[in-house]
């Protein structure tokens, strides 16, 4: 027997590694203003900057006027009774700040990124948007026209058409199932926007989430600006959402005769974040299609080369959730890809996930969670996910606990309980 020289490096052996056991989340300071607005504050970081989000629950979906939540939010930067759109943009840009408006199914928000030294100049602009927006007629016409042009481009993209058809099928005539039409844009009226704005953008319907270097001076400035002079109207906003209504028809095919690729979207309504099985289903989803090394990627991209990318995901909303698979594949292999998607799903129902694969997925998911906490903004994002779902920080403890301890037996049980490919909604745009 001879001794290996010390300098010989064995490159076939992986270095030792440590499992992640401790993930610490920063929790916010909370205060409620006199007008009912809730402030959550994450004070951390070295850079002299802050991100401030004003988040409003959307009003209950009105099928007769389906775009109001979106149109009101998008047009907040288009003029107030003291500032024109141009003046708003000038002020924000001059101070090197960034102003964004974003809307989702359930919330709409205004976000300001600002250096602390310029908050005196930038905060009053936001206060003006939230209290004095006027939705000028000319800007509304421009908005309607430009959105319709964008829609024309979107409708030429197979993946977008597939997503619209899929959402319509599984969520029905709700804000989640809405695929905006040209007529929806044409019928937008200034008076409707103004009325919607008054109801939705009230302090009692607002949560302010601050992240960054929020010292006492900055916090006092924010509190002052959004407490005094910002009052609620006479009517409280109705922010409940109608029940999801999945369609009876489960197969949708839109033929595009010249398509080089087909977009595929397959899935089903399922449980949401509030259900005790949700975290376990996230593990199962990760195994199946939730990361680069997933079964779908390994088989359909890395083994067959049918696609540039394929994945699966879970959506979670107030009224329910969804599970879906999405990809774009070569038009000639579309049927074969659907067969493989089904095959991989069924394997989850019959074969135990091998211990080695499950341990990899556990570590991957915990590493992702840790890696998603890049800076103080990410801690605020983690808070938003639970806060707007009505959950507490226990959610993340349960998540880490489930990821560490779930068994292969439990995963098979879940797959059999939640995944029935025959009942899945299937949308194909392209060739089939």
């Amino acid at each position, binding site marked *: 027997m001879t001794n290996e020289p010390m300098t010989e490096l064995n490159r076939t052996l992986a270095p030792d590694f440590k499992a992640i056991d401790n993930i610490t989340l920063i929790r916010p300071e909370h205060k409620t203003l006199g007008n009912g607005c809730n402030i959550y504050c994450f004070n951390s970081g070295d*850079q002299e900057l802050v991100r401030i989000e004003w988040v409003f629950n959307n009003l209950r979906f009105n099928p007769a006027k389906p775009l109001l939540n979106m149109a009101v939010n998008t047009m907040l930067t288009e003029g107030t009774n003291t500032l024109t759109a141009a003046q708003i943009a000038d002020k924000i840009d001059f101070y090197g700040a*960034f102003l964004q408006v974003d809307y989702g199914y359930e919330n709409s928000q205004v976000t300001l990124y600002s250096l602390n030294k310029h908050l005196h100049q930038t905060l009053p602009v936001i206060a003006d948007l939230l209290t004095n927006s006027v939705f000028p007629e000319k800007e509304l016409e*421009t908005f309607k026209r430009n959105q319709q042009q964008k829609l024309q481009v979107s409708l030429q993209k197979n993946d977008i058409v597939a997503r619209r058809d899929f959402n319509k099928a599984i969520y029905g005539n709700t804000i989640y199932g809405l695929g905006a039409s040209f007529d929806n844009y044409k019928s937008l009226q200034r008076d409707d926007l103004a009325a919607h704005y008054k109801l939705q953008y009230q302090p009692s319907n607002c949560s302010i989430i601050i992240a960054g270097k929020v010292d006492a001076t900055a916090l006092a400035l924010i509190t002052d600006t959004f407490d005094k002079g910002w009052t609620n109207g006479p009517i409280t906003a109705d922010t409940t959402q109608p029940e999801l209504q999945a369609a009876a028809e489960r197969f949708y095919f839109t033929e595009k005769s010249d398509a080089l690729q087909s977009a595929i979207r397959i899935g089903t309504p399922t449980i949401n974040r509030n259900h005790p099985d949700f975290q376990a289903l996230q593990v199962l989803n990760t195994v199946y299609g939730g990361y680069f090394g997933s079964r779908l990627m390994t088989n359909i991209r890395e083994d067959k080369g049918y696609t540039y990318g394929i994945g699966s995901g879970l959506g979670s909303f107030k009224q329910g959730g969804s599970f879906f698979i999405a990809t774009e594949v070569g038009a000639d292999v579309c049927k074969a890809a659907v067969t493989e998607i089904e095959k991989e799903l069924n394997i989850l129902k019959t074969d135990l996930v091998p211990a080695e694969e499950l341990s*990899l997925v556990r570590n991957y998911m915990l*590493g992702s969670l840790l890696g998603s906490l890049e800076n103080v903004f990410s801690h605020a994002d983690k808070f938003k996910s639970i806060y707007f779902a009505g959950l507490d920080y226990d959610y993340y403890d349960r998540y880490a606990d489930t990821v560490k301890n779930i068994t292969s037996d439990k995963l098979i049980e879940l797959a059999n309980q939640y995944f029935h490919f025959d009942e899945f909604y299937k949308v194909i745009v392209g060739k089939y």
Partner: protein
Amino acid sequence: MVKFNRFTLDNGLRVIVHEDNTTPMAVLNILYDVGARDENPEQTGFAHLFEHLMFGGSVNIPSYDEPLQRVGGENNAFTSNDITNYYITLPSANIETAFWLESDRMLSLAFSEKSLEVQRNVVIEEFKQRYLNQPYGDVWLKLRPLVYKEHSYKWATIGKTIKHIEDARIEDVKAFFKKHYTPQNAIMVVGGDVNLEQVKQLAEKWFGPIPAGEKYHRNLPQEPEQHDERRETVTAKVPLNDVYIAFQMGARLDDDYYAVELLSDILSRGNSSRLYRSLVQDRQIFSEVHAYITSSLDKGMFVLEGKPLENVSIEQAEAALWEELEKVKTEAIPADELTKVQNKTESTMVFSEMSLLDKAMNLASFELLGDADQLNYETEKYLAVTAAQIKEVANNIFRKDNSSTLIYLAEQTELV
């Protein structure tokens, strides 16, 4: 201010260490000084195809992704016309796994036929998904050869044609690796919850034994100055007409680069910018309009793009763009407007320090440009630009005989 230390291994690998102990994560970023510009004109798309093959197993490690995911890490990569960049983020306690994986693939790949065959298919699907099966997806396949006649920027990173991808052989792959994937052709940045001594020790251990290889000397044909107005019109299955006007501009290291970038900001950054305000809001010529630069290491492109409204002719749309360009060439830029774009650039630099990966990539890019420390002097270079300099670069760039215009005409079809 991004602080760092750097050292070079005997085999020529440059290493930069950025300690940031506010995070429990670490990042390992490797930039290889090779991009689509280094390809053979008959084998385009190769640098990018090669990036895919880098994930197909290395000489001692059959799977790249799996061991990384096992330690809680994630990775990705991108290829541009200038560089190929690979990065890993993982819990800092497991940083050695990143050294192990990256050093083995710098040592040698597995060069498996199966991996080549599959990645050829994956890249062909990427070609279709991003360039052919999208409205306007092929714009760079058309615009680049209009702007560049000599320089290898005339093809896109995906390649000139799918045929070049289909024809790639394993011998070509091996030759490309030998030529470009050497320690002296790479810059490694290790950042996050790490320390200099630890990184030195790990770099020596894993990368130190890799042979230096031969130095690649780049000798690309340079693009001559343009003195002819170029134009191409295509009719395509797109929903709306679209106008592109591209100009040749200087290289990233040219002195006037900062003035040119601020010029593009004045024209098109944010809703207070000139093109948006004048051509979308006031005059209602376009539904959207943009201006941007390519920041290339060799002679770059300054691009204007806009989709005219349906009642606006292509001629009117082009004329309106040129009127804005004439204004910036002839009229003085107001002091407030210059301050505005400078302030925006300054705060963008501060915000980018919130991201560990951004800092690591920036350090690698600046080291490639000559000195990582220049990252910390960027802001002052933008702040030093004067209104007169911006006007001067506008006059140099925005000439008809320096323009390449590409028009998409929408084939008449009924609306969905």
